[in-house]
Structures are given as C-alpha cells and as structure tokens.
C-alpha cells in the first residue's frame, strides 16, 4: 500500500469527521428556543440571574467564531464558542442530556451502544452472507426460477420500510403465536442461574429484531450483487473464458464472483449510513434498548444534545468503519495500490 493511498484515505476520513463536528456545532447554535432557555428547560421560575449564569457557563457571551466583526473592525479571539465546542467534543464532552437529568450525553450513549452493536452487526453480517449468496446465484442463473422469485422477493423487501416489516413480524410471531417475547433485550431484572439461561433469554429477544434487520437488508444486497454478477458475466474476458471452454461453475467462482464482489462491497460500505436509518426504526418497534430507540426518544423529548450525540457517534463510526475497511483492503489487494 503506497503512502499516498494511505494519506488520501486518512485525510478524506479526517475531513469528513471535521465536517461532522462543524455541522454539529451549527446545529447546536440553531436549536429552536434560545440556547440558555433550552438548557434550563424544565426549570420553573427562571430568574434573569440564572439565565445570565447559564449564558456564561455555556460561553454564549463569547463570539461564535474565532473571527468576528464589531464597530472596531475585525476581532480575532481565541475565546470563542466554536473553539470551545470543538475542544469539548474532542475531549469527549458532549454536554448534558435534557431528559436524563444530570447524566452526560456520553454516559447516555454508553448505555445504549452495545445493543445496537449487536443487533446491527449481526444483522449486517447475516444479510451480507445471505444477500450476496442469493444475488450471486440469481445473477448466475439469470431468468431461472430462483432468479425470478428471488428478485421479486428482493425488490419487495427493498420496497418495504423496516418498521413495517418489524410490525408484521411482531404481530405474527410475538403477539399472535407468542413464540417470542414482545419487547426488550432481556427479561428485566431476572437473575439467571447461569450464562446459558441468560443467553437463551437474550436470543429469544434478539430473534425478531435480527430477522427484521436482516430481511430488510437482504433484498438490497441481493439486488446489488445480482446486477453486479450479470454485468460481469457479460464482460469480454468472461466471454473469452467461455470461448476457452472453461466450465460455467469455474467461470463463476474464479472470474465473475471476485470481480462482482468488489463493486458490490464498496457500495455496501457506502450504504452503511443509509442502513442505520432502518435500524433505528426497527429498534423502536421492538423496544430494543439501543441507539435508535434513544434517538427517537430524544427526538420526542427534543433532547437535542443526545440527538446530536447519536448523530456524531453513528457518523464517526461509519466513517471509521469505511476507513478501516479501505485500509485493510488496500493492504491486502495489490490492485488498489495506486
């Protein structure tokens, strides 16, 4: 992997993260309601002294940006809201939640990140494996029965909002058949005799949300993979390979698949951010105590600091995931050392 590839990837990721922080700052300034009042929300009988104290605490009396203009001309000051915000963000200080009184946004996020990592990570994994397999097979046997049915199902799944899928599964398998619990990640407050019992309880709760996330993604991945395979199979070198008398299976495994996977996976990586939106609503439907439920609750309560924290966390995670994948990939695959 050449230095320039590394540098390009790194600087691109850094730029994106910097932009995320800037956007977050602007959003914080733009919150409805004057900032100090919003901060003191829920506080009855706010006195002017308290408002002033809040303004001071949050540095709202400082200029917003390092460079500002007043009657005397251009003022350059290190004491500004932007620097403070960036400094605090870098230090991991995301402020305080309105709703979770007294807890920092960091604390609130920490409580919710694991459930999302598990649900989203597993769902993504299952969907990639199943989706790519289905897509590859459909594309290979283009026009066959699997392709027709698979493609149709994929398209319908792709067209279905995740939460709708989740509601359907919940209705049928939890409230209807009662095969699975209706909510949560674990039965609350139960003390388990052993790890196994806990795992069983956890898996029972995980089944439906995981199925929803996976089903929602499988359609998309299958579509992408199928179209990629179909295209690869029409490439010149495949035709050449056919002409050389290679078997179809060999062509698929050794030529079509590898080449179709590359663009597919790149697109999956790029689509991660979009997938997150779906995961959010799935969590809400199943009362899954993750970042998605948190985001929607924060939205309902207009808990902007938490909402921004979720945005920052998810954005940076997706950017870093893309970066890490890029770097390792670059390390392993000689062709991208350009």
């Amino acid at each position: 992997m050449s230095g320039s590839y590394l540098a390009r990837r790194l600087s691109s990721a850094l730029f994106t993260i910097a932009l995320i922080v800037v956007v977050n700052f602007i959003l914080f300034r733009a919150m409805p309601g004057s900032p100090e009042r919003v901060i003191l929300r829920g506080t009855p009988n706010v006195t002017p002294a308290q408002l002033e104290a809040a303004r001071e605490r949050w540095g709202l009396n400082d200029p917003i940006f390092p460079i500002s203009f007043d009657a005397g001309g251009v003022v350059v000051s290190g004491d500004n809201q932007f620097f403070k915000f960036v400094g605090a963000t870098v230090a991991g200080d995301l402020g305080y939640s309105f709703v979770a009184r007294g807890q920092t946004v960091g604390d609130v996020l920490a409580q919710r990140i694991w459930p999302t990592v598990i649900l989203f990570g597993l769902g993504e994994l299952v969907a990639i494996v199943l989706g790519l397999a289905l897509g590859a097979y459909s594309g290979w046997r283009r026009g066959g029965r699997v392709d027709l049915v698979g493609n149709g199902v994929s398209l319908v799944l792709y067209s279905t909002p995740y939460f709708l899928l989740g509601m359907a599964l919940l209705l049928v398998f939890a409230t209807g058949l009662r095969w699975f619990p209706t909510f949560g990640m674990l039965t609350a407050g139960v003390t388990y005799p052993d790890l196994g019992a806990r795992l069983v309880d956890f898996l029972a709760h995980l089944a439906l949300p995981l199925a929803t996330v996976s089903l929602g993604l499988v359609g998309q991945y299958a579509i992408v993979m199928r179209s990629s395979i179909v295209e690869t199979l029409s490439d010149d070198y495949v035709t050449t390979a056919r002409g050389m008398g290679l078997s179809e299976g060999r062509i698929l495994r050794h030529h079509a698949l590898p080449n179709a996977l590359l663009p597919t996976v790149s697109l999956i990586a790029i689509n991660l951010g979009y997938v997150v939106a779906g995961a959010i609503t799935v969590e809400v439907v199943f009362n899954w105590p993750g970042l998605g439920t948190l985001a929607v609750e924060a939205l309902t309560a207009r808990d902007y600091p938490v909402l921004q924290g979720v945005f920052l966390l998810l954005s940076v995670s997706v950017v870093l995931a893309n970066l890490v994948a890029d770097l390792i990939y670059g390390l392993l695959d000689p062709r991208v050392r350009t």
Partner: protein
Amino acid sequence: MAQSARVRFGRALLASALLGATLLPAGVPALASNHEPLVLRAGTDQDLQVLNPWNSVVVADFEVYTLNYDLLVNFGQDLEPVPGFAESWDQDGTTWTFHIRPGMNWSDGEPATADDVAYTFQLILDAVDTDYGCLGQCYLDGYLLNAGVTSVEATDAETVVIETEFENTLLLQSYVPILPEHVWSEYTLEEIGNHEGVEPFLNDDLPVVGTGPYQAVEFEPGNFIRFARNEHDWRDEQGAPDEVIIQHFSSIDTAVQALRTGEIDYVRGILADQFDALRNEPDIAVVEGIANGYTELSFNTGGNSEGYGGRTAALSDPAFRDALGYAIDTDALVEATLGGYGTPGSTIIPPFHTRWHVPPENPRTFDLAEADRRLTAAGYVLDGDGRRLDKDGNQLNLRLTWPDSEAENATNAQFMVEWFGDLGIEIDAAVTEEGALIDAVTGPPNGPADYDLYMWGWVGDPDPTSLLNFFRTEEIGFSSDSFYSNERYDELFLLQRAESDEEQRLAYLTEMQELVYAEAPYHILYYDAELHAYRTDRFGGWTLQPSEGGTPLFGYGSFGYTKLTSLAEPTPEPSSAAPSGAASPPPSGGGETPASTDSTLLILGVVALVAVIAVGLVLVRRRPSTEEE
C-alpha cells in the same frame, strides 16, 4: 395521547405516575432462600433516567423516589396526611413540631433521625441562596417555599422544629423525600443539585439507602429499575411483592401487549381504544382515574399591547374570550380526542380535588348562535364577506398552536378551525416545536409573548396551590403563559394560601375559580382521564388512591404497593428455573450494572461497532483475491 406527563416549565407534579412494574418471577438470591421472590412489574412509557430525586420531572421519577424514600408526612388513601418519616406533628401558629419515630433505621441499618430531616430541608434553603436558586430540576424546592419555610432545626434526635413565614398547612403536603444525611453529606450542594461545572451526584450507588418500602438495587437507565424490599421497613403493613420492577416501554402499545402476555402486571397511561379492548380480557382489570390536571386553550391576554406579540387587542377583552367559550364543544373534544374518557373542562381546579373543585355558576354551553350574538354585542361585527372584525376594523385571523410533544392537540385544533371559522374568525393552526413554544409563551420582560391562542396542559399537586400560581400578576415573565392579571385574584391567592380554616379557604378558592372562568384567560378544554390496567391473576389487594377517581399505583407515594397481596405462587420463570447465585455477566457485555455508564465502555463500544462493520467488509472484500490465486 394523554399518557405523557404534561409537565411544563412550571412545577407541575405529576399526580400519578406511569409505572409499570411487572411481577416476573425472578430469582433474588438475597431474599430467596427457598422460594422465588415475588416480583411486581409495572410498565411506563416515560423514560427512566433518574435516581437522584432532585432531578425528577416526570411521574415515573416521582414514583421511583417515593418507593425509595418517605416524605416527612405521607399521603393516605384519600390523600390525608398520614405518618411518614415523621410519626406525628403539632402546629402552633407558624411553628411546626414533627416527631420522628424512635428506633427507625435506614435500609442500610443506620439510625434515621431528626437530623436527616433537618439536613434535607436545609439543602433546599441553602440552594435558594446560590446563583442557581434551586436544586436539580427545581420541581421540589417549591414545596417548602410555598409553605413559607424559613428555618428547620433538629432539637433532638426525635424532634424537628420548622418555622414558617405565615400560618398554613401546605407543609403537610410537601413532596420532598427525606434523605439519609450519612450518605448524602459526602457530596456538596452543587453536586447534589446538579449545578453546572461539577460532577453531578446521580445517587446510582446501589442499593439506594432510604426508608421507603422498596429500594432500587438495579438500574439500567432508560430501561428498568429493580427494587428490593426494605429489610428495615418501619411500616406494619407491607406489600406482597418481594421486588418491584419499573419497566420503560418506548411505545404504550408494546406495554399493553406485554400485559396481555403476562410479561408485566401493570400499565399506566393506556389509550382509550386499548382500554376498551382490555375490558374484556380475562385476568385483566382496567381502572379509569381522573387526572389531577387539565388541557387548556390559553389566550395571550396581553393582546397586541406594548411588550406583547398578539395579533389583535381583542385577545385582551374578556367579553371576546367569553364569547369564544360558547364556540367550544368540550363534549365533542372528549369524545374525539380522548376517546370518551375524560371530563369536559370548566374551572381551573380539576374535579380531582373533590373538596375544592366548584363548578361554575353559569356554565357556558356549546351554542354557535350565542357565541355570534355575544361577539356582535361586544362590538366584534361581521364584514360584507362574513369575516369577523376586531374593534380596529381588522379581520380577525388568529394563530393557534400547541407543542409537538402533545400531538393529540392537533385533533382539538381541527375542531377549533371549524367552529371559530363558522364565526368568521380565521384560525391559522400549526404545531410548534416545544422549546420554541416555551420561548414564545414567556411574557415580558423575559420573553416576547408571541402567540394568540395555544393549547397545552398542567398537572397539579395534592394541594391545588400550584395550579393557581400561574394566573398571578407576578408570574408574568415566568410561569404565567396567559399573562392574566387581576388584583383581586392576586389577593385571593395569598389569602387562600395562608388560610387554615377549610370553609373559609373554600370560599376563596370558589371566588378564584369563578373569576378565572368568567374572564377566561384559559378555556379549560377537558380534564384527562388516567387509564390504567393490571393483571388480577397474580396480585390482589389493588387499592385506589384516592378512593374516588384514583388508581392503584402511580398515585401519591408508595401507598398502593403496600396494599398488594399475593394470589398465587409464581410460575417458574422459563429462563431462570432455580433461585441462584449472583447474576452472571450478560453474554453481550450489555451493561446491566451502572458501571456500564463508564466512558471506557463507550469507547470500547465504538471500537466494537467499527470493528464489527470493518471485519464484515474486509471479509467479503478479501474473498475475491484469495479465490483468485
């Protein structure tokens, strides 16, 4: 719909809490030597984030701290004062003497004494002198300040003497938990009060130390709180549950499903249609309580005068507001918005306060012709196009809004647009973001008072005083959102507050209700219902508090929990067959202990999130190159 606590910036205490504790048979090793502990599970759609009582805002928060702690004086079945932390009390004018129960202990075995009361109350008195002016979310300080408390002193271990500024009995209704000095005094006022710039004290060092019937032993913020019975409880009467779990649901529909499947035992704040459906379910009982609060249509009574952002001076005219009262069919609103559960609104003291609610002498009825007649008589005539004009000759076009957190008001708005439209008054109806709305309805000098009509609600305390506060002139710029100002009202407010003769106080309160009803800064649209449901196959002894219009749980304090009886041996929990030793760690690493709030976990989580995704991507990307060899 109405399940949310309509707590605003005022000190609205939620009269009832949404608690959903379900009794799932769970194994608690400490208690269960031979049997499964009996667990009550109650579901709520309110967020569970608070163990430090000073940070309480929503009903669930109040339910949590009244399980953990006692008030100085608790509430009985009909909200009468009964022994709490104090066993008895005497009043001599402005001096109160409270006698603390001898030999009472905190849940950790330490003695609970008069010093703890003095410590707790002094926290509030001290906080008033800080820049911040109050503790935490500032909902509890008012209970002492409204009662005019000036000093509190423990004269010996069993006696507390409290001086008040004026003679009143509000002290007996103060919703302030008595905290253990030996635990809390290790923290500064700033840490306890969650003041900016210090590490806040969250009280999440479990188990919580209190004198209440149950103490929190496990806390998953935003998910559930598990409480275990207080082994040092002073009460003679104790509830059957060995444990109580309050479980958060992000949707009330999920909670209702969980009640049906028996995953939980109690749900607060269900919706009208669910209520109807649950009526016919076996082993489930429903209860319709009256909320201690209301939803109102508020007028910007400042109109377009200096400092006020209303569109027309008509808003300042009581005759105009009165006439519009005839154009509101409160029955239709109850039917459509509340699904028939609730009571059409009238005065500013809800019927929940059976002693104090006095229906208006001349109630308005829905009659558009009468409204038209009154508007015309008051000088608001129609122009040639059938548009109503104000006295300046401008067409009346009023903005109507409500907070986005109370979406059901959109239904009310559909009606108002139609009704007021029939009178030639055009209504411009749109929702407003809650934070922006709070700003907009703040009066001068602290806010723009920039609205015409808006809908929201208030929830009251056991005593109606807090619900009367925001019509006072001195509250303009603070909690007053109608900017109503009336000298007689202000005078009556102080009189009723200091009146200990019940009959005389009722006379004052009657006059206040009449006054506001007649001048109509608010039209009370309806008093919401409290719709709860619970399972009857595991626990008995469900007792309403108050006995009329009350609910078994989420009432006032821990009363309802102490009345519960057990009906059956718990069925074995599928996932935890045997009572067992310590909880095993979650397979996922999912934070089950408060320690998970540690920021290292956050970092680990981020790393894991990145790693999981990256590994997945690399795996699939990697495959082609290996296969290609």
